[in-house]
């Protein structure tokens, strides 16, 4: 990772500026919805960044990462329901439980490689999904409303939307910095070495299983943090937040932005969620000459465009958006 100014860095810098300046703009424009959308984007970018550490640098394709969002969220939700709303208890516990869950899943799934790993992480996430559906006391299928956001005393008031947004943004910056430091440390080199050739790393004396497991746990923990934030953002947790398509969305974000790049997950998250908001409008606009008044309904079917779009990204833009910006980086 040599410091070289590429167009991707400028995009990232511009994006950071937009993210920083968003709350004042939203309040000036009188558009609180925008702030809510971007809070969600920032939180999901943390989850995508954690997946990128695992997938982009470690080469471990986890298809069950939404499970950690769910675990982190449910810890906050269950504690709130049981009357413990102190964030000093909720958040560390959310991180600890996510870490433990990641340890258990990682220890089992890392015994396998490639496509087995993809399927197994998916299956374990599905298991946790059904466990959440079965938790009748905590809402089961319908989910659980959180009536009181995590309390941090006089430190910060999470029900203040702007303060909460900046907290999420600061945590995203912190996670990104942490991942950047990790990736460029000795630990990160071993992880990346094990991605390109596990056997060779093993034979020069690195216990790669332990390194990979550590990477898995770190990634799961950071994702659990995103879950705790998301629970506070929506004031609600439900099994739907860890449905397997959410895990697929996270993979899409990482690959769309550019796997194995520091700012790729953020770019990918912004792109995907913006597409989710913009595609329906674009489709109905495009359909208007042909369908007239029916055009507004055509926008409902935006995923019919998103699906093939993903296929095209896979076929022709393998490096994602960051890859398009920096040009062909590696073979």
């Amino acid at each position, binding site marked *: 990772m040599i410091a070289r100014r590429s167009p991707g860095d400028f995009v990232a810098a511009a994006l950071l500026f937009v993210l920083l300046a968003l709350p004042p703009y939203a309040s000036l424009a009188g558009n609180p919805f925008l702030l809510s959308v971007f809070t969600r984007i920032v939180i999901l970018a943390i989850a995508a960044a954690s997946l990128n550490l695992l997938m982009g640098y470690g080469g471990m394709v986890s298809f069950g990462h939404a499970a950690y969002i769910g675990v982190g969220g449910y810890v906050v939700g269950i504690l709130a329901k049981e009357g413990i709303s102190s964030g000093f208890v909720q958040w560390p516990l959310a991180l600890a439980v996510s870490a433990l869950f990641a340890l258990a899943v990682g220890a089992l799934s890392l015994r396998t490689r490639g496509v087995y790993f993809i399927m197994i992480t998916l299956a374990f996430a599905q298991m946790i999904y059904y*466990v959440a559906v079965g938790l009748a006391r905590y809402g089961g299928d319908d989910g659980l409303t959180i009536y009181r956001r995590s309390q941090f005393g006089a430190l910060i008031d999470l029900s203040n939307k702007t303060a909460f947004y900046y907290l999420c943004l600061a945590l995203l910056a912190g996670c990104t910095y942490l991942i950047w430091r990790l990736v460029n440390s000795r630990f990160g080199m071993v992880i990346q070495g094990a991605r390109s050739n596990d056997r060779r790393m093993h034979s020069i004396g690195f216990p790669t299983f332990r390194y990979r497991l550590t990477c898995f746990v770190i990634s799961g923990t950071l994702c659990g943090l995103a879950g705790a934030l998301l629970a506070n953002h929506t004031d609600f947790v439900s099994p739907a937040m860890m449905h397997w*398509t959410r895990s697929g969305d996270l993979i*899409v974000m990482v690959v769309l932005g550019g796997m194995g790049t520091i700012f790729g997950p953020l770019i990918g998250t912004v792109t995907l969620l913006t597409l989710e908001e913009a595609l329906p409008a674009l489709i109905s606009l495009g359909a208007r000459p042909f369908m007239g008044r029916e055009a507004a309904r055509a926008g409902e079917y935006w995923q019919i465009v998103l699906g*093939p779009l993903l296929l095209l990204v896979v076929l022709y833009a393998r490096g994602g958006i960051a890859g398009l910006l920096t040009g062909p980086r590696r073979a």
Partner: protein
Amino acid sequence: MLLVFEQFLNGLQLGLLLFLLAAGLTLVFGIMDLVNLAHGSLYMLGAYFAATFTTITGSFLVGVVLALAATLLAGMALEVVAMRRLYGRDHLDHVLATFGLILFFNELVRLVWGPEGRNLTLPPWLNSSVEILPGVTYSMYRLSIIVVALLVALALYLVIMRTRLGMLVRAGASNREMTGALGVNINLLYTLVFGVGAALAGLAGLMQAAILTAQIGMGENILILAFVVIIIGGIGSIRGAFIASLLVGLIDTMGRAFLPDLLKAMLSPAAAATVAPALSSMLIYLIMAVVLVVRPEGLFPAARK
């Protein structure tokens, strides 16, 4: 005892449905080295085709045959348009591309058939009960699912192990280039295999649709069960898929039926009522975990090169 027997048949029936789905998945994976998440979409398409064709023709059997043919064609078209470009790519590419295809197919079905589910009506001769043992009646339709799926499994085994086509399929699986160099049209072969896998998934989908309904996204949850089957059975192995799907079907059904009572005998009723639903839905995943610890390659790993 009667209940146990009936649940055993239900488990067998779920297991065989899973096998139809898993067989296509494992064939495509074993031969083309392709992870196809959109396999569940073909399962869904089969169900919707059947609902439409039985309504149009007014005959259940004709509708089913037409639906199978349509799913076969849809599968082959999918292979030619999209899947063919994915061979030899990274597995992550497969996951992403086929995830995109799932979104596409779900929306396509919503566009064509609308958001409500479709019912598949059974003819009277199927929608009846039959006395299988003295004093034991069982749904004729569920029984016929078991028979049909067993016949298909047998036919699949015979085609793959005893015919020239099956030999080519096995040859293509162990060495693609060598088989191509010997003059076999490998592209056609792959399109055919993919289409057959699609038709098997469609068969499973339409058979299930008559019990539940044809719904958008119906293939996704059962697809993950099929993944569990493949992991337990060993990727690429038809025999492994067969045994593992029966195992998963039986354990899942029996667990849901009898685990609550079993737990009540051991725990307090209140504790059992909270634990049982969660535990019975975790059961097959726990078994998968145990299989992974003991044999990471699955119970019957296919011989790989």
